[in-house]
């Protein structure tokens, strides 16, 4: 197996650009998630990697080999489709053995291999079933086993969890990640679900409008978003508008000092992003970086509590774990919130925020 490299890969449909020229590399044995809202070009990018879509320009390298001009059936990257795309006329065993059958592998050998794979995805009791007799989760496992049967050098998954219900989705994310780590196969998953990407990926590629916004490990993307779009798309964030004055940001009702200091010219309009769970509401919070706040709404979401507050700089959501703070807040309560300097991310005001 070898890493996969995209060089200046681009896709245009007529005058519409689906994917802007993009450079990406997928390291050997790692799982990369292509994450973004629908229509951001992530599926088109995946289809170009699979060979199902021809790139308008750019090169695709597998190891040292240029595979840009190879068709899908020559690349033979295993792919799991959003709809699973199983063959309804074949049994579970027939589906998993398909790639080996057309490669000319003898019946006994391919059935042994197919049974091994079905064992791996815990479906060994279902070999003779028709596809129509399987549940959504079982179908997904068959699709995964089928794509792995040919021992592909790259494993591609297009929104593999979107057809599953929430609980099963969480289970399958963990299971798929464990399977991928066990096999050590270079894997690319397309998803619009940031939780899914955070659960499974070694590396996340955040995309929007055909462009790559940020590449990095999940925690880095969450804690250090490169721009306002990433901050708003990955997890929740509060946004405040202000202007820079000597490295600090003046917002309505106060001055906030980010750390490191805001590297903008004085007077520049900026947007500050802060995660709800980073805001302090305790009385013993530091005296700096404070804003007056009035509680407008409180809700308990399982293990955490959301407090919606109105500040002079705009509305904010504060999240803390229940039990972490003894105070009970009621609608109408007046208080002060502290925004820790290290949790403030400052972006130019012109940057888009995800819808």
């Amino acid at each position, binding site marked *: 197996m070898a890493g996969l490299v995209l060089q200046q890969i681009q896709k245009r449909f007529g005058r519409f650009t689906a994917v802007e020229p993009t450079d990406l590399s997928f390291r050997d044995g790692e799982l990369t998630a292509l994450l973004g809202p629908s229509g951001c070009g992530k599926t088109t990018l995946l289809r170009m990697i699979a060979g199902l879509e021809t790139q308008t320009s750019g090169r695709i390298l597998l190891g040292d080999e240029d595979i840009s001009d190879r*068709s899908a059936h020559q690349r033979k990257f295993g792919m799991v489709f959003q709809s699973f795309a199983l063959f309804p006329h074949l049994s579970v065993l027939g589906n998993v053995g398909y790639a080996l059958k057309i490669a000319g592998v003898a019946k006994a050998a391919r059935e042994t291999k197919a049974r091994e794979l079905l064992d791996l995805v815990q479906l060994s009791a279902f070999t003779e079933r028709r596809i129509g007799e399987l549940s959504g989760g079982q179908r997904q496992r068959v699709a995964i086993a089928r794509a792995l049967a040919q021992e592909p050098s790259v494993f591609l998954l297009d929104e593999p969890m979107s057809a599953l219900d929430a609980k099963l989705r969480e289970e399958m994310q963990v299971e798929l990640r464990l399977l991928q780590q066990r096999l050590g196969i270079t894997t690319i998953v397309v998803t619009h679900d940031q939780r899914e990407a955070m659960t499974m990926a070694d590396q996340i590629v955040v995309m929007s409008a055909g462009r790559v916004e940020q590449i990095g490990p999940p925690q880095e993307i969450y804690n250090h978003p490169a721009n306002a779009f990433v901050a708003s798309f990955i997890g929740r964030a509060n946004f405040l508008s202000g202007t820079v004055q000597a490295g600090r940001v003046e917002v309505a009702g106060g001055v906030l000092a980010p750390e490191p200091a805001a590297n903008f010219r004085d007077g520049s309009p900026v947007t500050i992003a802060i995660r709800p769970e980073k805001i302090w509401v305790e009385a013993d919070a530091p005296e700096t970086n404070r804003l007056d706040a009035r509680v407008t709404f409180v809700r308990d979401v399982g293990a955490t509590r959301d407090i919606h507050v109105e500040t002079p700089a705009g509305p904010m959501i504060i999240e803390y774990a229940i039990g972490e703070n003894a105070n009970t807040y009621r609608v109408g309560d007046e208080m002060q919130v502290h925004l820790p300097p290290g949790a403030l991310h400052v972006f130019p005001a012109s940057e888009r925020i995800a819808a």
Partner: protein
Amino acid sequence: MTASAETGPVETPALSLPRPGPGVLKKTAYTALIVALCVVPFALVLVISMGEKIEGAGWQWALTLENYQRFFVGAEPEAPTYLYLQRLWYSFYYAIIAAILAVATAFPFTYLMTRQSRRIQTVWLVFLLSSVSLSEVFVVMGWDILLSNRSGLPMVFKETGLTAWLKDVGWFQTLRDWGLANPRNVRFKPTEFATVLTMSYLVWPYAVILLYPALARLDNATLEAARTMGAGPLTVVRTVVIPSVRLPLVGAVLLLFVFLLGAYVAITVFAHPSRHTLAVSVYEAVRGATLNAPFGAAQAVILLVTAALFLGAAALLARIGDRRAA
């Protein structure tokens, strides 16, 4: 059905006697319709088939099986002839070959058509549907001119030197062996080739329309999945497309086969009289030269029953095949 149906809308049926519900009424109406449209005409034909011809006049009601006997062994059982069994054979022979030919050629066309944009598909479908409005007579006339020995393709063969070339390379003799040439030139009338060709042309648009829904519904992702597993375009068709639409394919062949059992004009124009079908012979008996309605009816009944047996056997085979594949 009248009384209760006319009592009009929603009255409280509180104390009235139990009335037949709407379900029962619907069922009765359907049954009456089926009896009136299917059973009665068939029963009539069945009864007529047991009638007797009066020489030099019409026919009279009777209850004889002579017409059936004549069909299977001829008028004189002591010296049996199998003319009508032969015609039954030709009915099946032309119909099945033409139906298979039509579906086999319509399949790749329809598959490629469904891979095009919606717009192109619509244009093709409208064009094909409008060609369906051409009657059998019209289509056969066209092919008659196209294949006629003096003005059609044979003339083109001769005038362009193709005939001479065929003679030079020695392939002309092969055509003669196949009955597609006389000593001077190629000829298509009367031949089985022209008969089957015209018959399959006749039903070709139907074949496309019958295959279209199944092929259009085919999940594109399954074809792409096959490609990512190493299947080239032809392998995709062989291993995914055809197995997915196997039942519609068989269904289309059967439907067109039954339809073609009744082909008349194409047979009379293109087939040699010694190889005419039962449809032609039924017409001759009922309306044509021999004027023997009971015998015509008997032939029609046999054609119908044989076709039904054939379809039943095909359905059984399909079910067995399905169970084996499962």
